[in-house]
């Protein structure tokens, strides 16, 4: 149970739904409310599909490459830490890549905004966890579900917290991701030293 929650929370923090709200809103501002809902539900489902596909792909890849648990923990810790650094030190006016004006389909909302490279990397890293398939899958769905609610209510959340509040959340979450990253790395390191 503890593993389940810790995986779900890590994924939720890396998906960074709160931090993506400003970008998402600027992408869909020209649509009516109804169109927006249809669009985001479709993109959310596609993102979930991508995440689950990567979960199985990750297992396959890792068993192919024959990497050990220590390797996955240490590299996973480093990757997570780099993600965290980006969340923590992101400048307010950092320019996002410009996406074309056409109706978003898969790119850029489903991926990379929702199921971005960092999320997929974390999912692949989790594939090596001892815990059963079902736990990881459940955690993916839980993290996705909570993020979905945030996306569906993004307008209200944005009105309530403004860009500054969202930035604050993102930074605090980044700090938590950094701590999780270091803990993962340390576990790998002690595993290596005890060998």
């Amino acid at each position, binding site marked *: 149970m*503890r593993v389940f*929650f*810790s995986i779900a*929370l890590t994924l939720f923090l890396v998906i960074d739904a709160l931090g993506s709200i400003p970008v998402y809103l600027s992408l869909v501002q020209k649509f009516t409310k109804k169109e927006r809902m249809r669009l985001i539900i479709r993109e959310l489902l596609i993102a979930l599909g991508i995440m689950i596909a990567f979960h199985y792909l990750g297992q396959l890849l890792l068993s192919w490459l024959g990497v050990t648990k220590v390797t996955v923990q240490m590299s996973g810790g480093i990757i997570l*830490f780099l993600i965290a*650094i980006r969340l*923590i*030190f992101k*400048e*307010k006016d950092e320019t996002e890549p410009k996406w074309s004006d056409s109706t978003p389909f898969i790119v850029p909302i489903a991926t990379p905004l929702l199921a971005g490279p960092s999320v997929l990397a974390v999912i692949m890293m989790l594939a090596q966890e001892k815990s059963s398939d079902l736990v990881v899958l459940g955690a993916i769905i839980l993290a996705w579900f909570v993020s979905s609610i945030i996306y569906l209510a993004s307008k209200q959340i944005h009105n309530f917290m403004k860009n*500054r509040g969202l*930035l*604050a959340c993102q*930074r*605090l979450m980044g*700090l938590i991701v*950094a*701590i*999780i*990253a*270091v*803990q993962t790395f*340390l576990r790998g*390191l*002690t595993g290596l*030293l005890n060998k």
Partner: protein
Amino acid sequence: MINLSVLFHTFFLFWIVLDPIGNLPIFVNALKHFEPHRQRAIIVRELLIALVVMLLFLFFGQGFFILLNIEQPALEITGGVILFLIGARMLFSEPNSGTQKKLKEEPFIVPLAVPAVAGPGILATIALYGGNQQIGTLTVLLAIVLSWAATLPFLLLAPYLKKIFKENGLVVVERLSAYLVILIAVQMAIQGLLNSL
């Protein structure tokens, strides 16, 4: 109900760990581009955020970290590495160059509130004392608020240091204090590493 000598002891320990004087260089550096008036506003805001973080940690911290399987060394190492990055940015930023515009960004939460004030040291101490049944949560709560209030006036001195040292003197102070920040950061990380091995 509240044992005064225990309260005083806890307060004093928290105040030492909050390290208002050691934090001064970090504050001076992060705030160098702002008017004294604005600096005071930022200091008060960041300290309030730090207080909120500390109180959140007192009430939810332990459960949260137990849930995530996170141990003390991870907190220390993370705090150390992040402070180190901040220190390195301070040390290698050229005055009057392009990077200055970037640094002019108002500090918000990172690095002042967390991890400079509400850093791993104070959070670990809070977790240690908050979990102690003999001391009691109320005493710890009071000690946090009191030590926080005793830290505020020291950090509010930061804007005046700029007046004393003038522009050029401040550049020297900046470099020196960036070095101090790096020292503090490495000490934090080494402490964590030693505890973890």
